[in-house]
């Protein structure tokens, strides 16, 4: 342990300097006359005007100053300022839109530029750094997230952000968006559920017969090696053969393309992380605990359900987390074999060179993955047995 008190928070100082640099050099947004024509990129000074761009710089300079000075409760104040700054980003977009949108052109739209993304990313990193140093980090994190979401909700309700190209792409196809969301969730969560059940079964099997361990893990890691696009492709031929020989399969929707090859491939990919974590979790319960259970006269079934599973839960949940994130990403690829989901927008957009449509597919995929990450991290913490006696945490 180092006892030296760090006077300067070099991380926040460095990041805020970087943020100032990127804010002034990257394009803040772009103005497009319609959907396909590439937009004219506009920098911060021209895009936001003197007042807003100087105000943003001033906030970043305040952050820099607070990072350099050492005073009581500094990280609390820094977290507050950062939360406010993040919550105010829609205001900056509003300023940009009112200055640049051509109201006479119904197709005109405003694209969000790299400057905005960089600002969001760096402010987020700084916030996570300062929240980490707070005495009550968990409460701070909740407050910060709530504050930012409130700010954005207020911004969405008060300002006219319809001109943003992303919003326009959404407004053309709200039903399609909901369908894509539903398909995406059904495919990835379905694959995760199936693979969880299969993995628990396989783990129990392998625990009983240790000679099966090598072949089972061998097959499962072999599957993981095959690139996703290849596996989707390889499934097409046998599945279309199957469905043409057995017409009743077609009625179930099992064809060479569609959800069937996607689901099979997703389950195949999900098996390795799921099985690895489940197996490690179930087998590394401390011997004393098992002996204590046996001494209390528990049957093998009771030992499994009342000792092993509860203790293994956090590591199994960690496996579910890794698997879900992976499945959400792979489902996007599955759109290439016609399985639906957000990948449809990505590949349609790439085909039409409509970048906003690509964003409409890519951003929700990322948000879903981040949300799954947060959800299962919290769930793993809530489900860990008190006293930390069980399984040593195992990361991927």
């Amino acid at each position: 342990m180092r006892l030296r008190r760090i006077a300067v928070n070099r991380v926040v100082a460095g990041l805020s300097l970087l943020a100032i640099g990127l804010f002034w050099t990257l394009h803040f947004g772009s103005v497009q006359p319609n959907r396909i024509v590439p937009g004219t990129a506009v920098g911060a000074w021209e895009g936001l005007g003197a007042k807003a761009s100087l105000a943003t710089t001033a906030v970043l300079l305040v952050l820099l100053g607070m990072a350099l000075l050492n005073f009581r409760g500094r990280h609390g104040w820094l977290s507050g300022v950062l939360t406010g700054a993040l919550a105010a980003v829609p205001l900056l977009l509003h300023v940009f839109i009112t200055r640049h949108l051509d109201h006479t052109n119904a197709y005109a739209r405003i694209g969000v530029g790299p400057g905005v993304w960089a600002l969001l990313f760096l402010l987020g990193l700084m916030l996570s750094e300062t929240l980490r140093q707070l005495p009550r980090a968990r409460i701070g994190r909740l407050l910060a997230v709530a504050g930012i979401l409130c700010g954005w909700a207020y911004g969405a309700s008060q300002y006219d952000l319809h001109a943003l190209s992303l919003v326009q792409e959404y407004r053309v196809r709200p039903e399609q968006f909901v369908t894509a969301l539903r398909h995406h969730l059904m495919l990835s969560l379905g694959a995760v559920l199936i693979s969880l059940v299969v993995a628990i079964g396989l783990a129990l099997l392998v625990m009983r017969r240790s000679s099966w361990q090598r072949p089972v893990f061998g097959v499962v890691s072999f599957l993981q090696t095959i690139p996703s696009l290849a596996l989707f492709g390889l499934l097409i031929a046998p599945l279309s053969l199957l469905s043409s020989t057995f017409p009743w399969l077609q009625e179930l929707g099992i064809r060479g393309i569609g959800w069937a090859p996607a689901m099979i491939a997703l389950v195949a990919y999900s098996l390795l992380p799921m099985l690895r974590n489940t197996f490690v979790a179930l087998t590394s319960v401390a011997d004393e605990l098992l002996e204590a259970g046996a001494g209390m006269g528990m049957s093998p079934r009771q030992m499994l359900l009342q000792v092993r599973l509860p203790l293994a839960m956090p590591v199994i949940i960690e496996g579910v987390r890794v698997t879900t994130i992976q499945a959400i990403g792979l489902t996007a690829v599955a759109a290439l074999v016609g399985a639906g989901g957000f990948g449809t927008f990505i590949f349609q957009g790439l085909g039409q060179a409509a970048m906003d449509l690509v964003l409409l597919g890519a951003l929700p995929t990322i948000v879903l993955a981040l949300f799954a990450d947060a959800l299962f991290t919290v769930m793993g913490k809530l489900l860990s047995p008190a006293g930390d006696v069980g399984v040593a945490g195992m990361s991927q």
Partner: protein
Amino acid sequence: MKLWLPPFLWLTALLAITTGLPLMEPVFAAWGKPALVYPRESLLLLLKNHLALVLLSGLLAAAVSIAAGIAVTRPWGRDFLPLASRVASIGQTFPPVAVLALAVPAIGFGDGPTLVALFLFGLLPILRNTLAGLDGIDRTITQAATAMGMSPGQVLLRVELPLARRVILAGVRTAVTINIATAAIGSTIGARTLGDPIVAGLVNGNTAYVLQGAVLVGLLALTVESLFEALERQASRSTPCAASA
């Protein structure tokens, strides 16, 4: 010698199919199925390009992230350690396809954006494992090395890096495996890789193209994977048993 047999066999199969398929075209034609082989580019060129993208991005990513991993585990860079491990773990939740897709509005179509996306995506697993490897070394070992009169540079090169080597190598392996798969998807943004026949086949409903591409990408992945397997075995043979991870 037995160690290197699997990668050799996979490689032989990969090269045999890549070069052999076009030569089989007259046979297919005689059989009554002309134009069965993907015609737009030679498969060998696609294989070379695919491999070049993966290797170049992998090398760059390894260089940058190992350097970053070393920097944030030195005394002068330790302030940045939580930030680096946070970025590495958040970054890994980003789906590769999304990163690939986002590279297009930022840079454009073609090999270049694919390379950038592969590089960015390769950084995270390598950085994460470098941090785990270097940070997981028992402090008493490095202290012992310092007490023996080693300079910080010597401690890094002769104690820390050899001990962390296996974990770092595992990170490089993860990155390369992901990147072989992502490079195949890169053909949807205009990179010329073995994904081309697959995507073209999917678009035109030509299962023969899909199958060629899929088999070749699969074989490429298996070749590289078994190569890493052999390397890891080799490394674990020659590593002192004090390796901690």
